Structure formats: structure tokens, C-alpha cells
């Protein structure tokens, strides 16, 4: 079960992020999580969105350099030690994490942790065998972050 992360190459200057968010806003695409990693003058914006294929097309059409990348979205408990149980498992299995970030689904219940790893299929089966729930793109799109549910 594969999820997609959208990665966009952007120069680190005013207006680039605004361009991305305005395209996504116009296309009514919902952003679930966003991280930005920069190397002084340029960087990569990583996003989890509800409709990755459509978002990819919209961004590409505007001439930006964008890529859909396979990542694993795994549900963890939103409580102290929740993330640790996952990371300890990855350590035992010697899976190297290139990039990771997360967002809360239901406060004090569960969260989604997104990991970008080199051996994606192997990691998935390790996680599933250990009882973790891994989300595919569709499940990720319909998962409602907590603030939508509670307000």
C-alpha cells in the first residue's frame, strides 16, 4: 500500500511557496502535511495532499519542477512512546529513513507518520507483519485530521 508525496523544487525566495499554495487552493486540493528542506538558495517542498495526481498535473502545468514520490504513511498511537515503537522496529530491521514527518489524526488517539525510505516494499511488509496500519493514497485522502472532526 503505497502513498504519494509530492516534491517540488523551488528557489528559496519570496513568492515561490505562495505560488504553490495558490495553485493548490485554486484546484481545491487539500494539504495534509508539508515540510520544507532548504539548502540556502534552493530547496524542496514536500507535501501530502488529498489528490496527489491532480495536484501534480496542476503544478507541472504551471512550469514548476515536481515529482511524485512513493512513501509509506503509517498510523501510530498519539501518545508518549508512540513514535518510538515504530522507530525501534526500523532500527532493528536496519531500515534507513531519508526523510520523515507526521500529522495528528485524532488528538491523543492516533497520528500519521510519513516515512521516505530506500527499501519501500520490504519496509512495508515489515510494518504490516508487526501490526502497523499502513495507508494507501485513497485511505490517506479520506483520513480526516483531528481539527475537522472536532470543530
Amino acid at each position, binding site marked *: 500500500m503505497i502513498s504519494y508525496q509530492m*516534491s517540488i523544487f523551488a*528557489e528559496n525566495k519570496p513568492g515561490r511557496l505562495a505560488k504553490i499554495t495558490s495553485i493548490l487552493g485554486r484546484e481545491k486540493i487539500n494539504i495534509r502535511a508539508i515540510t520544507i528542506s532548504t*539548502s540556502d538558495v534552493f530547496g*524542496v517542498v*514536500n507535501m501530502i495532499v488529498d489528490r496527489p495526481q491532480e495536484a501534480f498535473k496542476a503544478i507541472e502545468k504551471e*512550469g514548476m*519542477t515536481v*515529482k511524485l*514520490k512513493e512513501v509509506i504513511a503509517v498510523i501510530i498511537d498519539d501518545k508518549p512512546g508512540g513514535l518510538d515503537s515504530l522507530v525501534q522496529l526500523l532500527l532493528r530491521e536496519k531500515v534507513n529513513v531519508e526523510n520523515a514527518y507526521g500529522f495528528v489524526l485524532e488528538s491523543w488517539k492516533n497520528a500519521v507518520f510519513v516515512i521516505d525510505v530506500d527499501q519501500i516494499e520490504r519496509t512495508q511488509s515489515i510494518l504490516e507483519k508487526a501490526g502497523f496500519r499502513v495507508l494507501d493514497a485513497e485511505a490517506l485522502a479520506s483520513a480526516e485530521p483531528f481539527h475537522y472532526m472536532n470543530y
Partner: protein
Amino acid sequence: MYWNREAETMPMERVRKLQDTLLRDTVAQAAGSHFYGERFAALGLTPADIRSVDDLSKIPFTTKDDLREDWPYGFVAVPREELVRMHSSSGTTGRATVIFHTADDLDAWTDLLARSMYMAGMRKGDVFQNMMTYSLFTGGLGFHYGAERVGALVIPVGAGNSKRQIQLMSDFGTTAMHIIPSYALHLSSVFEEMGLDPRRDTALKLAFLGAEPHSEETRRRVEDYYGVKAFNSYGLSEMNGPGVSFECSCQCGMHIWEDNFIVEVIDPKTMEPLDEGEEGELVLTTLKRRGMPILRYRTKDLTRIIPGDCPCGRTHRRIERIKGRTDDMMIIKGVNIFPIQIEKRLMDIPGVGSNFQIILERKDYNDHMIVKVEVQREIFTGNLKQLEDLRRKIIEELKSDILITPKVELVEPNSLPKTEGKAVRVIDNRERQQ
């Protein structure tokens, strides 16, 4: 395979004799112009003092400043009514210089272009798309008339409007194009945008690259992308324009037409002549122009004569790809660097896109070079580390050649200013920051 076998394969001794004759005519003709009339008088020189090419050194060099000072008609050596065409240099550095032609001058120039294009493989029946500006600039009209003389069907589209260029290519089966190399690289992104592949969707087989110095690596990129053989050419408006020097099918240097020009290579500092094979500034004398003859013109272009014969059988010597203009040379921390050195390295690195820009800054009395490089869209994997590796590789490659460490900034594809004319590669902010 020759447009004019006799002229192109003439033994060198006969070329030299022909040059002596033509030089005497040219000097006599030039003496009738205001500029050379005064110059010869000041030196006590008469046309009779110039008997052969060996006497050429008696005549002082002519510079661009001379052309500017006796502007506009000071070099004209025929009655004004004999002139049928005017051209002008791009004039990016000061007042533009103007060049005039008689009908015979245009005929001789057209013939050189026809000879050059035929040499590269263009024939009657080819469809030639001329993507250069039709204007005061010599590149457009020069190739236009040369291609017509070869017998090609000419599409005189001019520069710009990329989508229309591609449309014309596919609608009319263009087989040969005349294009600025930096624009050829840019146009590839428009092909991609339109979902077209020039190898599959056009009949292109020849590209004439001109109007700006470019590296071998850029030529290979153009050849690979378009599936063509790409030919380098050299010319300058003061010497008619294109058609001074052109590559043959060997692609191993540009034959310079010595039945039309006398070629010298000098040390730009001492102005002393250099031996064959040594790199220096090219100095040219027109041999067939009646309207506006120019003697010993300092081109400011740096090259060398390639020693030895060419396998193609043409006797006219070859000059190497232009390394740059003496004007283009950047001095950074005391190191002399030409933009083409940077281009050559960059175009050899996978992942580097089609455009780049060099910015020079001065901070605390120190020079800094910033190289902005467009990234190739296809190589992006979404990984920042990959981009950092590319940047590190670019810095290492450049450092090994230019000996200073530039700051390299990766920028998005198509974000640098696009050029449909000559590319502006260097922005020097140092004066302002002194």
C-alpha cells in the same frame, strides 16, 4: 561536394598570389575613402607601397573605434549611389558601427554563404528555416540569400515565437535550420511542452549554429536533442557577417575563406604577429569588398589557426572554435576566465539544464563569482541531497578549470532570462560595489 571546386581546393601558393593581386586592388580602392585617404597621407604611404601580403604590416590596424569615429560614411570608397545595403553591428558596447555594400559586394558575400552551406551538406531541395533576426543584423539576410542561391526552399520566419517555429518545422518538413545555440537549447523545453520530439516529429538533419561563441559540449547537446549534424560558423558585420569561416563535414575547425580575406593572428597585448597554431586575436582584411574595404581589422575574437591539412580537401586554413572576445574576458582575483570555459564544463555535467548565468560581485574588496545554473527537469527525484550533490559536482568541475571556487546556485528550469538574440551570460556588478 564542392560549391566551387577551383576556389575551395586552390593550392596555397596560388591563393597567396591571388591575395597579392586582390590586396593591391583593395588598398587602391580603400585610398579613395575619407578614412584611409587621410591615414595613408599622414603616414606618407601610397597604394604603390603595398605590392604583396608581405607589405601588409606597413598598414596600421583598423579598430572598432576607428569605424565609430569616422561614422557613418568615412570608410565608403564608392559614390554613395553605388551602395545598395546597409547593415549594423549589434552596438551593445557604444555606438553601433555601420557597414555598406554595393550590389557586387552582396553578390560575393552571398556566394560565400552558399559555398559554406553547401560544404556543410545543404542542397537544392532542402527546406531551410532561418530563425535569425531579419534586421540590421547580418545573420538573417546573409543566410537567407545564401540559402536561396544554393536552391533551398527558404522559410524566412525570423527570431522568436517558439511555438510557431515548431509548427512551421513540422508543417513544411524543415530539413535545415539556422539558430543561435542558446536558443536551440531553450527551444527543446518548448518541444517538450508541446509533447513533441524533434527526432520523431521533424525532418531536421542540419543545424547552422551561429551568432554567439559556444562550446563543443553545447554543439553535441544540440545534435543529440534534434538528431542533426550541427555546424559552427564565424563572421562579423565588419567582414560582411556570417560566411567568413565555416565548418566542413569533418567538424574539425572552420575553414576561413582566404580568397576573400587575409588572416592574421596577433598577440592582443603586444600586437605582434603570432606563429601558426598560437592563440591570439584574429585580424582580417577584406579582399573583395569595393563599397567599404577594411584593412587589418582587429576583431577582438580569440582563436588560433589549426596547423595541417583538412581531410575534406579544401586548402583554406581552419581556425579553431572562437574562445571568446578579448572584451568578454573576466578577471577574477587575478585569474583570466572566459564565459565559454564555464559553459564547456557545465554542458558536460548530467543534470545541468539549458541555461546559466554568471554574476560577478565585489564585497570587501574581494571578487566573487556566482554561477546560477538551471536544473534539468527530468533528473529531479524529489530529493534535496541529490540537488546538493549536483551542486557540489558543479563547483568541483568549475574549480578544476578556472582555479577559483565559485558560488553555485541551482535554479528552476526556464527561470533565467530567455534569449532569442545573443545570450547575456555575464552580469558584472563589481563597478557599482567598489
